[in-house]
């Protein structure tokens, strides 16, 4: 068995010893998405779509469309923070024991991807109980991008600051980005002019378009989201590689 496979198996076994984590990763999305949608009134609301169109929807449906993304961002971001924290502590020893930095960090990224997939699957399944987007495929893609982007932002935050600071950054960052700035429930129904500067912009617009339009227009925004995800993935590999590699020097 390759070293990556051994380290991945050990990493997944470590997570399996934490049943509360699985309960929270499944229970939190289920509880909050259903509750948020059920508690929201059907107040009429105009939503501006990518490509310039507008659609008259209501607050409950908009909340249904964006609550999954907010939840995924929170949870994937926090998983990213603590996967990175754990890697900082344990993977240095793997590198000292002879693993290359890449062999040590690949399993961590697999764990992050697996946790993000669980949160994504649960969030989308729960959303489907109360809200049906017009286009499922780009809706899933948008939410997957949110998970990847925030998972990796969490990992970078976990590398840059301690657990407490990284937790603050991810929770408030996700809340402000996807929960406020990109959220058509607030303001004019369209993101402000400076919204594209935030990481959730591309994915957020893909979600809005696929939720309310029967034809997909947000190709440019999808590309923006993909660029964010790739750039952050490169940054995570470089930063994590340096962190575990430096210890071996």
């Amino acid at each position, binding site marked *: 068995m390759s070293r990556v496979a051994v380290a991945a198996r050990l990493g997944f076994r470590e997570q399996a010893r934490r049943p509360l984590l699985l309960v929270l990763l499944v229970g939190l999305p289920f509880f909050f998405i259903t509750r*948020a949608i059920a508690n929201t009134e059907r107040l009429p609301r105009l939503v501006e779509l990518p490509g310039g169109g507008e659609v008259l929807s209501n607050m409950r449906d908009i909340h249904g469309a964006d609550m999954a993304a907010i939840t995924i961002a929170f949870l994937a971001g*926090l998983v990213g923070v603590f996967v990175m924290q754990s890697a900082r502590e344990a993977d240095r020893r793997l590198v000292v024991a002879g693993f290359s930095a890449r062999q040590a960090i690949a399993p961590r990224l697999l764990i992050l991807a697996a946790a993000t997939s669980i949160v994504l699957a649960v969030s989308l399944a729960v959303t489907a109980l109360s809200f049906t987007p017009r286009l499922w495929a780009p809706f899933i893609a948008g939410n997957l991008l949110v998970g990847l982007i925030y998972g990796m932002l969490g990992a970078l935050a976990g590398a840059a600051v301690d*657990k407490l600071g990284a*937790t*603050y950054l991810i929770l*408030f960052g996700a809340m402000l980005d996807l929960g406020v700035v990109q959220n058509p*429930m*607030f303001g004019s129904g369209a993101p402000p002019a400076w919204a594209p500067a935030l990481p959730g912009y591309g994915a957020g617009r893909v979600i809005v378009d696929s939720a309310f339009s029967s034809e997909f227009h947000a190709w440019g925004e999808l590309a923006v989201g993909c660029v964010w995800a790739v750039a952050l993935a490169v940054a995570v590999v470089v930063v994590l590689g340096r962190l575990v590699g430096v210890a071996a020097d």
Partner: protein
Amino acid sequence: MTRTLAFTREQLRAPFALALLIAVPALFVAAAAGVLADFARALGGGLAGDAAASLGAGWAAAFIAGSLGFFQAASSRGADRRLALAGAGPGRVAASRILASLALAVVAAAAGFIALQLRADIVHPWHAAAAVLAFALIYLSVGVVIGSVVDGALEGSLAVAFVFLLDVFSGPGMAESPAPYSVSRKAADVLIASGLGEASPGADWLKLGAAVTIALAAALAVFAYSARSRL
């Protein structure tokens, strides 16, 4: 005093920790104040005037203090017992822990309150300040209690977020009728009243004082339990 300072420094020794403790609640109040009234209306509640901005300050301080309480409790495990056995005694170690936690909660509450004062014209600023601090202290205790029963940092952070979001969605202002299990209900009542320019009745202050006292007593008990010898 030395122990209290050491416990305070323990939470602030990472880069940017103090800056984040101050900046995050301030930024949240500044950014979210404008949208919370719309959000409350969508959820069937109602927040007129500066009540939405006020509640945002309370929430920001609450979440910061809750996370802080969790990590304080998590780091007190084991270490505090050794400190107590080394001669400091469990009572003094617990007192130092709670004082350090209080100092940090006061900083987070002050940051939220100052941002609120800059953002809104609060008629009863001392009432608002007391209510924001109460939010922070109640959640400090929530975090400490969670830290005493949950081991992992990720699980603990998620558990604090769970209680916080449950409270936000079911508390005054956001729900048509606030749920009885909303832990910050009384703090929110006083904070919303101050945002509306109204003074809260004496009964509300008494209930808020009781909630904060119970919360702090629980946090102190957790720290004392962590520090006591198992020999």
